[in-house]
Protein backbone atom coordinates (compact mmCIF):
# COMPACT_ATOMS: atom_id res chain seq x y z
CA UNK A 1 0.00 0.00 0.00
CA UNK A 2 1.30 3.38 -0.98
CA UNK A 3 0.24 6.94 -0.29
CA UNK A 4 -0.49 8.90 -3.45
CA UNK A 5 0.07 12.53 -4.23
CA UNK A 6 -3.66 12.98 -4.43
CA UNK A 7 -3.99 11.68 -0.87
CA UNK A 8 -1.30 14.10 0.35
CA UNK A 9 -3.20 17.02 -1.16
CA UNK A 10 -6.48 15.79 0.32
CA UNK A 11 -4.72 15.40 3.68
CA UNK A 12 -3.58 19.03 3.66
CA UNK A 13 -7.10 20.19 2.78
CA UNK A 14 -8.48 18.04 5.58
CA UNK A 15 -5.95 19.51 8.02
CA UNK A 16 -7.22 22.98 7.08
CA UNK A 17 -10.81 21.86 7.81
CA UNK A 18 -9.86 20.15 11.07
CA UNK A 19 -7.92 23.16 12.30
CA UNK A 20 -10.80 25.47 11.45
CA UNK A 21 -13.17 23.21 13.40
CA UNK A 22 -10.74 23.10 16.31
CA UNK A 23 -9.75 26.76 16.24
CA UNK A 24 -11.65 27.62 19.43
CA UNK A 25 -10.59 24.41 21.16
CA UNK A 26 -6.86 24.92 20.49
CA UNK A 27 -7.08 28.58 21.46
CA UNK A 28 -8.82 27.61 24.69
CA UNK A 29 -6.07 25.11 25.52
CA UNK A 30 -3.50 27.81 24.74
CA UNK A 31 -5.32 30.37 26.91
CA UNK A 32 -4.78 28.12 29.93
CA UNK A 33 -0.99 27.92 29.63
CA UNK A 34 0.11 30.14 26.75
CA UNK A 35 -1.09 33.25 24.99
CA UNK A 36 -4.41 32.14 23.55
CA UNK A 37 -3.54 32.29 19.88
CA UNK A 38 -2.56 28.79 18.76
CA UNK A 39 -5.92 27.95 17.15
CA UNK A 40 -6.17 31.34 15.47
CA UNK A 41 -2.60 31.12 14.16
CA UNK A 42 -2.85 27.56 12.84
CA UNK A 43 -6.17 28.30 11.16
CA UNK A 44 -4.66 31.37 9.48
CA UNK A 45 -1.63 29.31 8.42
CA UNK A 46 -3.57 26.51 6.79
CA UNK A 47 -5.89 29.00 5.07
CA UNK A 48 -2.69 30.31 3.47
CA UNK A 49 -1.71 26.73 2.58
CA UNK A 50 -5.11 26.26 0.89
CA UNK A 51 -4.41 29.36 -1.18
CA UNK A 52 -1.03 28.01 -2.28
CA UNK A 53 -2.09 24.41 -3.06
CA UNK A 54 -3.59 25.04 -6.53
CA UNK A 55 -0.21 26.37 -7.67
CA UNK A 56 1.67 23.19 -6.74
CA UNK A 57 -0.88 20.38 -6.96
CA UNK A 58 0.60 19.13 -10.24
CA UNK A 59 4.14 19.04 -8.84
CA UNK A 60 5.76 16.28 -6.76
CA UNK A 61 4.96 15.52 -3.13
CA UNK A 62 8.23 17.09 -1.97
CA UNK A 63 7.32 20.41 -3.60
CA UNK A 64 3.81 20.33 -2.19
CA UNK A 65 5.07 19.77 1.35
CA UNK A 66 7.83 22.37 1.03
CA UNK A 67 5.32 24.92 -0.23
CA UNK A 68 3.12 24.06 2.74
CA UNK A 69 6.09 24.68 5.05
CA UNK A 70 6.89 28.04 3.47
CA UNK A 71 3.24 29.11 3.67
CA UNK A 72 3.18 28.27 7.38
CA UNK A 73 6.51 30.00 8.09
CA UNK A 74 5.25 33.19 6.47
CA UNK A 75 1.79 33.27 8.02
CA UNK A 76 1.59 31.55 11.41
CA UNK A 77 4.06 33.51 13.52
CA UNK A 78 4.65 32.72 17.16
CA UNK A 79 6.50 29.50 17.89
CA UNK A 80 4.07 27.44 15.84
CA UNK A 81 5.16 29.06 12.56
CA UNK A 82 8.84 28.08 12.64
CA UNK A 83 8.08 24.69 14.19
CA UNK A 84 5.31 23.55 11.85
CA UNK A 85 7.03 25.33 8.96
CA UNK A 86 10.22 23.40 9.63
CA UNK A 87 8.23 20.17 10.06
CA UNK A 88 6.67 20.42 6.58
CA UNK A 89 9.83 21.81 4.93
CA UNK A 90 11.93 18.92 6.20
CA UNK A 91 9.20 16.43 5.33
CA UNK A 92 9.18 17.79 1.79
CA UNK A 93 12.97 17.74 1.48
CA UNK A 94 12.98 14.08 2.57
CA UNK A 95 10.72 13.01 -0.30
CA UNK A 96 11.89 15.37 -3.02
CA UNK A 97 10.68 14.45 -6.51
CA UNK A 98 8.37 11.63 -5.41
CA UNK A 99 4.88 11.16 -6.84
CA UNK A 100 3.90 8.51 -4.30
CA UNK A 101 5.20 7.30 -0.95
CA UNK A 102 5.99 3.77 0.21
CA UNK A 103 5.75 2.97 3.94
CA UNK A 104 9.55 3.33 4.09
CA UNK A 105 9.33 6.76 2.43
CA UNK A 106 6.84 7.77 5.09
CA UNK A 107 9.23 6.67 7.83
CA UNK A 108 11.97 8.82 6.24
CA UNK A 109 9.57 11.73 5.90
CA UNK A 110 8.34 11.53 9.48
CA UNK A 111 11.83 11.16 10.92
CA UNK A 112 13.13 14.19 9.01
CA UNK A 113 10.10 16.21 10.06
CA UNK A 114 10.40 15.33 13.75
CA UNK A 115 14.19 15.86 13.76
CA UNK A 116 13.65 19.29 12.24
CA UNK A 117 11.19 20.26 14.97
CA UNK A 118 13.57 19.08 17.69
CA UNK A 119 16.50 21.03 16.17
CA UNK A 120 14.48 24.21 15.78
CA UNK A 121 12.80 24.16 19.16
CA UNK A 122 15.43 22.36 21.23
CA UNK A 123 12.67 20.51 23.10
CA UNK A 124 12.84 16.95 24.39
CA UNK A 125 10.16 14.42 25.22
CA UNK A 126 8.72 15.42 28.59
CA UNK A 127 9.01 19.20 28.09
CA UNK A 128 5.25 19.49 27.41
CA UNK A 129 5.44 20.40 23.73
CA UNK A 130 4.42 19.01 20.32
CA UNK A 131 7.47 16.75 20.56
CA UNK A 132 5.55 14.71 23.15
CA UNK A 133 3.02 13.72 20.49
CA UNK A 134 5.39 13.53 17.52
CA UNK A 135 8.21 11.35 18.88
CA UNK A 136 5.99 8.48 20.11
CA UNK A 137 4.06 8.65 16.83
CA UNK A 138 7.25 8.34 14.80
CA UNK A 139 8.47 5.43 16.92
CA UNK A 140 5.15 3.58 16.68
CA UNK A 141 4.95 4.16 12.93
CA UNK A 142 8.49 2.97 12.31
CA UNK A 143 8.03 -0.13 14.44
CA UNK A 144 4.83 -1.08 12.62
CA UNK A 145 6.41 -0.58 9.18
CA UNK A 146 9.43 -2.64 10.18
CA UNK A 147 7.05 -5.38 11.31
CA UNK A 148 5.58 -5.37 7.81
CA UNK A 149 2.27 -3.70 8.66
CA UNK A 150 0.41 -1.75 6.01
CA UNK A 151 0.40 2.06 5.97
CA UNK A 152 -3.06 2.39 7.47
CA UNK A 153 -2.30 0.03 10.35
CA UNK A 154 1.03 1.78 10.97
CA UNK A 155 -0.70 5.15 10.91
CA UNK A 156 -3.39 3.89 13.25
CA UNK A 157 -0.68 3.00 15.78
CA UNK A 158 1.11 6.29 15.22
CA UNK A 159 -2.10 8.23 15.87
CA UNK A 160 -2.82 6.17 18.99
CA UNK A 161 0.72 6.89 20.23
CA UNK A 162 0.33 10.59 19.44
CA UNK A 163 -2.97 10.69 21.33
CA UNK A 164 -1.36 9.01 24.31
CA UNK A 165 1.59 11.40 24.11
CA UNK A 166 -0.79 14.35 23.89
CA UNK A 167 -2.70 13.22 26.98
CA UNK A 168 0.58 12.56 28.77
CA UNK A 169 1.33 16.28 28.56
CA UNK A 170 -1.52 17.03 31.00
CA UNK A 171 0.41 16.22 34.22
CA UNK A 172 3.69 17.58 32.85
CA UNK A 173 5.50 20.70 34.02
CA UNK A 174 6.21 22.89 30.97
CA UNK A 175 9.90 23.57 30.31
CA UNK A 176 9.71 25.34 26.95
CA UNK A 177 7.82 28.26 25.47
CA UNK A 178 5.50 30.65 27.20
CA UNK A 179 3.93 27.91 29.31
CA UNK A 180 7.25 27.44 31.11
CA UNK A 181 6.71 30.73 32.94
CA UNK A 182 3.76 29.18 34.74
CA UNK A 183 5.98 26.65 36.49
CA UNK A 184 3.77 24.45 38.66
CA UNK A 185 0.69 26.24 37.34
CA UNK A 186 1.27 24.57 33.93
CA UNK A 187 0.46 21.18 35.44
CA UNK A 188 -3.01 19.84 34.69
CA UNK A 189 -3.37 21.37 31.23
CA UNK A 190 -3.00 19.63 27.89
CA UNK A 191 -0.38 21.15 25.61
CA UNK A 192 -1.96 22.89 22.59
CA UNK A 193 1.01 22.12 20.31
CA UNK A 194 0.87 18.39 21.12
CA UNK A 195 -2.87 18.61 20.42
CA UNK A 196 -2.50 20.20 16.98
CA UNK A 197 0.21 17.64 16.13
CA UNK A 198 -2.19 14.84 17.05
CA UNK A 199 -4.97 16.41 14.95
CA UNK A 200 -2.66 16.70 11.91
CA UNK A 201 -1.59 13.05 12.17
CA UNK A 202 -5.18 11.96 12.73
CA UNK A 203 -6.18 13.80 9.55
CA UNK A 204 -3.56 11.80 7.63
CA UNK A 205 -4.98 8.53 8.95
CA UNK A 206 -8.54 9.58 8.10
CA UNK A 207 -7.45 10.54 4.57
CA UNK A 208 -5.64 7.27 3.96
CA UNK A 209 -8.66 5.33 5.21
CA UNK A 210 -11.28 7.00 3.03
CA UNK A 211 -12.08 5.58 -0.38
CA UNK A 212 -9.75 6.92 -3.08
Amino acid sequence: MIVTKDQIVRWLRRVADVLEENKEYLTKLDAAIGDADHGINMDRGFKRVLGQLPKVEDKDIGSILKTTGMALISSVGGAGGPLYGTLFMRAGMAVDGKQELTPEDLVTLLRAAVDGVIQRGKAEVGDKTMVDALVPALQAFQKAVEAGESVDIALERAVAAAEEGMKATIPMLAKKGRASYLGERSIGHQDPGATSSYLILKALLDTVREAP
Partner: protein
Amino acid sequence: MKKLINKPENFVRESLEGMAYAHPDLLKIHLDPNFVYRADAPVQGKVAVISGGGSGHEPMHGGFVGKGMLDAACPGEVFTSPTPDQMFEAAKAVHGGAGVLFIVKNYTGDVMNFEMAAELAHAEGIPVQNILIDDDVAVKDSLYTAGRRGTGTTVLAEKICGAAAEAGYDLKQVADLCRRVNLNGRCMGMALTSCTVPAKGTPTFDLGDDEMEIGIGIHGEPGRERMKIKSADEITEMLALAIIEDPAYTRTVREWDMEKGEWVEVELTDEPFKEGDRVIAMVNSMGGTPVSELYVVYRKLHEICEKKGLTIVRNLVGAYITSLEMQGVSITLLRADDEMLRFWDAPVHTPALRWGM
Protein backbone atom coordinates in the same frame (compact mmCIF):
# COMPACT_ATOMS: atom_id res chain seq x y z
CA MET B 1 -14.88 44.23 24.48
CA LYS B 2 -14.86 47.97 23.83
CA LYS B 3 -12.10 49.03 21.46
CA LEU B 4 -11.48 51.52 18.68
CA ILE B 5 -11.23 48.91 15.98
CA ASN B 6 -13.06 48.19 12.76
CA LYS B 7 -12.46 44.50 12.19
CA PRO B 8 -10.03 42.59 14.43
CA GLU B 9 -8.31 41.04 11.39
CA ASN B 10 -7.59 44.51 9.95
CA PHE B 11 -6.35 46.02 13.21
CA VAL B 12 -2.59 45.71 12.65
CA ARG B 13 -2.72 46.85 9.03
CA GLU B 14 -4.98 49.84 9.68
CA SER B 15 -2.82 50.93 12.58
CA LEU B 16 0.27 50.77 10.33
CA GLU B 17 -1.49 52.73 7.60
CA GLY B 18 -2.38 55.42 10.12
CA MET B 19 1.25 55.60 11.21
CA ALA B 20 2.40 56.08 7.65
CA TYR B 21 -0.06 58.97 7.15
CA ALA B 22 1.02 60.54 10.46
CA HIS B 23 4.79 60.38 9.94
CA PRO B 24 5.64 60.56 6.22
CA ASP B 25 8.82 62.49 7.04
CA LEU B 26 10.13 59.70 9.28
CA LEU B 27 8.97 56.36 7.99
CA LYS B 28 7.29 54.27 5.33
CA ILE B 29 5.36 51.07 5.64
CA HIS B 30 5.47 47.93 3.53
CA LEU B 31 2.46 45.63 3.59
CA ASP B 32 2.47 41.88 2.98
CA PRO B 33 4.89 41.22 4.44
CA ASN B 34 4.44 43.97 7.01
CA PHE B 35 7.30 46.15 8.12
CA VAL B 36 7.93 49.79 9.01
CA TYR B 37 11.17 51.34 7.76
CA ARG B 38 13.03 54.63 7.74
CA ALA B 39 11.96 57.06 5.07
CA ASP B 40 15.58 57.53 3.99
CA ALA B 41 16.51 53.81 3.99
CA PRO B 42 18.84 52.30 3.12
CA VAL B 43 21.43 54.54 4.74
CA GLN B 44 24.63 53.69 2.88
CA GLY B 45 27.53 52.45 4.98
CA LYS B 46 25.52 52.34 8.21
CA VAL B 47 24.69 49.19 10.17
CA ALA B 48 20.94 48.66 9.94
CA VAL B 49 19.26 48.04 13.30
CA ILE B 50 16.04 46.05 13.08
CA SER B 51 13.70 44.85 15.76
CA GLY B 52 10.24 43.40 15.84
CA GLY B 53 7.75 41.46 17.81
CA GLY B 54 4.06 41.01 18.31
CA SER B 55 1.88 44.09 17.91
CA GLY B 56 0.13 45.53 20.95
CA HIS B 57 3.26 46.97 22.60
CA GLU B 58 3.20 50.33 20.82
CA PRO B 59 5.05 52.58 20.52
CA MET B 60 7.58 49.70 20.53
CA HIS B 61 8.80 48.89 17.91
CA GLY B 62 7.37 50.87 14.99
CA GLY B 63 7.34 54.11 16.99
CA PHE B 64 11.10 53.88 17.33
CA VAL B 65 11.81 53.83 13.61
CA GLY B 66 13.63 56.93 12.46
CA LYS B 67 16.93 58.77 12.64
CA GLY B 68 19.17 57.63 15.47
CA MET B 69 17.16 54.55 16.41
CA LEU B 70 15.67 51.70 14.35
CA ASP B 71 16.00 51.29 10.60
CA ALA B 72 13.06 48.91 10.51
CA ALA B 73 10.50 47.25 12.74
CA CYS B 74 8.54 44.09 11.99
CA PRO B 75 5.13 43.95 13.65
CA GLY B 76 3.44 40.56 14.06
CA GLU B 77 -0.20 39.97 14.82
CA VAL B 78 -1.16 41.17 18.30
CA PHE B 79 1.08 39.40 20.83
CA THR B 80 2.28 37.00 18.12
CA SER B 81 5.82 37.00 16.80
CA PRO B 82 6.31 38.33 13.28
CA THR B 83 7.47 35.88 10.61
CA PRO B 84 10.90 35.38 8.99
CA ASP B 85 9.78 36.71 5.60
CA GLN B 86 8.90 40.07 7.21
CA MET B 87 12.31 40.31 8.87
CA PHE B 88 14.13 39.16 5.74
CA GLU B 89 12.32 41.63 3.46
CA ALA B 90 12.91 44.40 6.01
CA ALA B 91 16.60 43.50 6.14
CA LYS B 92 16.88 43.69 2.35
CA ALA B 93 15.07 47.05 2.31
CA VAL B 94 17.33 48.75 4.87
CA HIS B 95 20.68 46.99 4.42
CA GLY B 96 23.10 49.77 3.48
CA GLY B 97 26.11 47.55 2.95
CA ALA B 98 27.25 47.37 6.58
CA GLY B 99 25.04 44.50 7.74
CA VAL B 100 22.02 44.09 9.93
CA LEU B 101 21.60 43.75 13.68
CA PHE B 102 18.41 42.02 14.82
CA ILE B 103 17.47 43.02 18.36
CA VAL B 104 15.30 40.14 19.59
CA LYS B 105 13.22 39.92 22.75
CA ASN B 106 13.56 36.54 24.40
CA TYR B 107 10.29 34.79 23.60
CA THR B 108 10.33 31.34 22.06
CA GLY B 109 8.47 32.45 18.93
CA ASP B 110 10.48 35.63 18.40
CA VAL B 111 13.78 33.80 18.85
CA MET B 112 12.93 31.05 16.35
CA ASN B 113 11.51 33.41 13.73
CA PHE B 114 14.47 35.78 13.98
CA GLU B 115 16.87 32.81 13.78
CA MET B 116 15.24 31.71 10.54
CA ALA B 117 15.43 35.29 9.27
CA ALA B 118 19.14 35.47 10.10
CA GLU B 119 19.71 32.25 8.16
CA LEU B 120 17.86 33.75 5.17
CA ALA B 121 19.81 37.02 5.37
CA HIS B 122 23.10 35.16 5.60
CA ALA B 123 22.19 33.08 2.55
CA GLU B 124 21.50 36.35 0.71
CA GLY B 125 24.97 37.63 1.61
CA ILE B 126 23.83 40.16 4.21
CA PRO B 127 26.10 40.17 7.30
CA VAL B 128 23.80 39.62 10.27
CA GLN B 129 23.84 39.20 14.05
CA ASN B 130 21.05 38.45 16.51
CA ILE B 131 21.29 39.84 20.04
CA LEU B 132 18.76 38.75 22.63
CA ILE B 133 17.23 40.98 25.25
CA ASP B 134 16.39 38.92 28.34
CA ASP B 135 16.11 41.33 31.24
CA ASP B 136 12.90 40.42 33.10
CA VAL B 137 13.95 39.62 36.66
CA ALA B 138 10.47 38.25 37.41
CA VAL B 139 11.75 35.03 35.86
CA LYS B 140 14.26 33.59 38.30
CA ASP B 141 14.99 30.30 36.65
CA SER B 142 16.59 29.84 33.24
CA LEU B 143 17.00 26.07 33.48
CA TYR B 144 13.35 25.06 33.58
CA THR B 145 11.89 27.93 31.61
CA ALA B 146 12.55 29.58 28.27
CA GLY B 147 14.64 32.06 30.28
CA ARG B 148 14.13 35.67 31.20
CA ARG B 149 11.80 37.54 28.89
CA GLY B 150 12.74 40.61 26.92
CA THR B 151 11.09 43.73 28.35
CA GLY B 152 12.01 47.35 29.14
CA THR B 153 15.72 47.17 28.34
CA THR B 154 14.69 46.61 24.71
CA VAL B 155 13.68 50.27 24.41
CA LEU B 156 16.96 51.49 25.87
CA ALA B 157 19.01 49.08 23.72
CA GLU B 158 17.26 50.24 20.56
CA LYS B 159 18.03 53.88 21.37
CA ILE B 160 21.66 53.29 22.29
CA CYS B 161 22.45 50.86 19.45
CA GLY B 162 20.63 53.02 16.92
CA ALA B 163 22.81 55.97 17.89
CA ALA B 164 25.97 53.85 17.76
CA ALA B 165 25.08 52.67 14.26
CA GLU B 166 24.43 56.27 13.27
CA ALA B 167 27.87 57.20 14.62
CA GLY B 168 29.55 54.67 12.34
CA TYR B 169 30.06 51.61 14.55
CA ASP B 170 30.49 48.43 12.55
CA LEU B 171 28.21 45.42 12.98
CA LYS B 172 30.38 43.67 15.55
CA GLN B 173 30.71 46.86 17.60
CA VAL B 174 26.98 47.54 17.57
CA ALA B 175 26.28 43.90 18.49
CA ASP B 176 28.82 43.97 21.33
CA LEU B 177 27.30 47.18 22.66
CA CYS B 178 23.79 45.71 22.46
CA ARG B 179 24.87 42.60 24.37
CA ARG B 180 26.47 44.83 27.01
CA VAL B 181 23.33 46.95 27.36
CA ASN B 182 21.30 43.78 27.87
CA LEU B 183 23.70 42.48 30.51
CA ASN B 184 23.44 45.76 32.43
CA GLY B 185 19.68 46.24 32.19
CA ARG B 186 17.00 44.77 34.38
CA CYS B 187 13.26 45.19 34.39
CA MET B 188 10.15 44.08 36.23
CA GLY B 189 6.50 44.88 35.66
CA MET B 190 3.16 44.51 37.38
CA ALA B 191 -0.46 44.52 36.29
CA LEU B 192 -3.55 46.01 37.91
CA THR B 193 -5.83 44.78 35.13
CA SER B 194 -5.70 42.33 32.24
CA CYS B 195 -5.85 43.25 28.56
CA THR B 196 -7.95 42.02 25.66
CA VAL B 197 -6.47 40.83 22.37
CA PRO B 198 -8.84 42.07 19.61
CA ALA B 199 -8.96 38.72 17.78
CA LYS B 200 -9.91 36.93 20.99
CA GLY B 201 -12.32 39.48 22.43
CA THR B 202 -12.05 38.46 26.08
CA PRO B 203 -9.43 39.35 28.71
CA THR B 204 -6.16 37.38 28.50
CA PHE B 205 -6.28 36.52 32.21
CA ASP B 206 -8.60 37.10 35.15
CA LEU B 207 -7.57 39.42 37.91
CA GLY B 208 -9.91 40.28 40.77
CA ASP B 209 -10.87 43.91 41.46
CA ASP B 210 -8.66 43.93 44.55
CA GLU B 211 -5.79 41.89 43.07
CA MET B 212 -2.57 42.58 41.18
CA GLU B 213 0.02 40.43 39.44
CA ILE B 214 3.62 41.19 40.35
CA GLY B 215 6.15 40.33 37.66
CA ILE B 216 3.64 40.26 34.79
CA GLY B 217 4.96 39.61 31.29
CA ILE B 218 4.16 42.00 28.44
CA HIS B 219 1.73 39.50 26.92
CA GLY B 220 0.05 38.88 30.24
CA GLU B 221 2.27 35.93 31.14
CA PRO B 222 2.11 35.16 34.83
CA GLY B 223 4.63 36.76 37.09
CA ARG B 224 6.04 35.91 40.46
CA GLU B 225 2.98 36.33 42.58
CA ARG B 226 -0.66 37.32 42.59
CA MET B 227 -1.64 39.28 45.66
CA LYS B 228 -4.00 41.87 47.12
CA ILE B 229 -3.34 45.33 45.77
CA LYS B 230 -1.02 47.59 47.78
CA SER B 231 -0.09 51.28 47.76
CA ALA B 232 1.98 52.80 44.94
CA ASP B 233 4.98 53.13 47.26
CA GLU B 234 4.80 49.50 48.33
CA ILE B 235 4.42 48.31 44.73
CA THR B 236 7.34 50.49 43.60
CA GLU B 237 9.47 49.10 46.38
CA MET B 238 8.65 45.50 45.43
CA LEU B 239 9.64 46.10 41.81
CA ALA B 240 12.69 48.26 42.52
CA LEU B 241 14.16 45.94 45.14
CA ALA B 242 13.59 42.87 42.95
CA ILE B 243 15.68 44.65 40.30
CA ILE B 244 18.34 46.23 42.49
CA GLU B 245 18.91 43.15 44.64
CA ASP B 246 18.74 40.67 41.76
CA PRO B 247 21.78 38.39 41.93
CA ALA B 248 24.07 37.59 38.98
CA TYR B 249 22.14 35.77 36.28
CA THR B 250 23.73 33.26 33.91
CA ARG B 251 22.14 31.95 30.74
CA THR B 252 23.15 30.27 27.51
CA VAL B 253 22.03 32.03 24.33
CA ARG B 254 22.51 31.31 20.64
CA GLU B 255 24.39 33.83 18.54
CA TRP B 256 25.22 33.70 14.86
CA ASP B 257 28.80 32.91 13.87
CA MET B 258 29.23 35.13 10.84
CA GLU B 259 32.42 33.39 9.68
CA LYS B 260 31.13 29.85 9.84
CA GLY B 261 27.49 30.65 9.11
CA GLU B 262 26.11 28.67 12.01
CA TRP B 263 24.63 29.12 15.47
CA VAL B 264 26.93 28.96 18.46
CA GLU B 265 25.95 28.78 22.10
CA VAL B 266 27.34 31.54 24.29
CA GLU B 267 27.17 31.66 28.07
CA LEU B 268 26.54 35.15 29.43
CA THR B 269 26.44 36.42 33.00
CA ASP B 270 25.37 39.82 34.23
CA GLU B 271 26.49 41.39 37.47
CA PRO B 272 24.20 42.76 40.19
CA PHE B 273 23.79 46.48 40.77
CA LYS B 274 26.11 47.99 43.35
CA GLU B 275 26.46 51.23 45.25
CA GLY B 276 27.86 54.00 43.08
CA ASP B 277 26.29 52.75 39.85
CA ARG B 278 24.88 55.36 37.50
CA VAL B 279 21.62 54.26 35.94
CA ILE B 280 19.13 55.19 33.28
CA ALA B 281 15.67 54.65 34.78
CA MET B 282 12.49 54.03 32.84
CA VAL B 283 9.07 54.09 34.49
CA ASN B 284 6.77 52.69 31.85
CA SER B 285 3.01 52.45 31.57
CA MET B 286 1.64 49.08 30.51
CA GLY B 287 -0.81 51.06 28.37
CA GLY B 288 -3.71 51.96 30.65
CA THR B 289 -1.96 53.73 33.50
CA PRO B 290 -1.93 57.54 33.37
CA VAL B 291 1.27 59.57 33.45
CA SER B 292 0.32 61.11 36.82
CA GLU B 293 0.47 57.67 38.44
CA LEU B 294 3.81 56.97 36.74
CA TYR B 295 5.25 60.04 38.46
CA VAL B 296 4.02 58.75 41.83
CA VAL B 297 6.03 55.60 41.06
CA TYR B 298 9.02 57.59 39.83
CA ARG B 299 9.01 59.64 43.06
CA LYS B 300 9.41 56.52 45.16
CA LEU B 301 11.88 54.94 42.75
CA HIS B 302 14.06 58.05 43.00
CA GLU B 303 14.08 57.77 46.82
CA ILE B 304 14.89 54.05 46.76
CA CYS B 305 17.75 54.53 44.29
CA GLU B 306 19.20 57.30 46.46
CA LYS B 307 18.99 55.09 49.52
CA LYS B 308 20.69 52.24 47.65
CA GLY B 309 23.47 54.47 46.35
CA LEU B 310 22.37 54.41 42.71
CA THR B 311 22.33 57.69 40.81
CA ILE B 312 19.65 58.11 38.19
CA VAL B 313 21.46 60.08 35.51
CA ARG B 314 18.77 59.89 32.79
CA ASN B 315 15.14 58.88 32.84
CA LEU B 316 12.12 58.10 30.71
CA VAL B 317 8.62 58.34 32.15
CA GLY B 318 5.75 57.39 29.88
CA ALA B 319 4.27 54.61 27.74
CA TYR B 320 7.04 53.00 25.70
CA ILE B 321 6.53 49.23 25.87
CA THR B 322 2.90 48.49 26.51
CA SER B 323 0.48 45.59 26.69
CA LEU B 324 -2.56 47.03 24.91
CA GLU B 325 -4.82 48.68 27.50
CA MET B 326 -3.40 46.89 30.54
CA GLN B 327 -3.13 49.02 33.66
CA GLY B 328 0.16 48.64 35.41
CA VAL B 329 3.75 49.73 35.36
CA SER B 330 7.20 48.40 34.66
CA ILE B 331 10.48 49.71 36.00
CA THR B 332 13.73 49.33 34.08
CA LEU B 333 17.17 50.22 35.38
CA LEU B 334 20.20 50.21 33.12
CA ARG B 335 23.68 50.61 34.57
CA ALA B 336 25.14 53.07 32.10
CA ASP B 337 28.78 53.76 31.31
CA ASP B 338 30.06 56.83 29.45
CA GLU B 339 29.73 55.18 26.06
CA MET B 340 26.09 54.25 26.66
CA LEU B 341 25.30 57.72 27.97
CA ARG B 342 26.92 59.36 24.96
CA PHE B 343 24.69 57.33 22.65
CA TRP B 344 21.68 57.87 24.88
CA ASP B 345 22.16 61.63 24.55
CA ALA B 346 22.77 61.49 20.79
CA PRO B 347 20.04 63.02 18.60
CA VAL B 348 17.01 60.89 17.85
CA HIS B 349 13.94 61.59 15.78
CA THR B 350 11.22 58.94 15.77
CA PRO B 351 7.46 59.11 16.34
CA ALA B 352 7.85 58.19 20.02
CA LEU B 353 11.29 59.50 21.02
CA ARG B 354 12.72 62.78 19.90
CA TRP B 355 15.50 64.96 21.18
CA GLY B 356 18.55 66.82 19.88
CA MET B 357 17.07 67.24 16.39
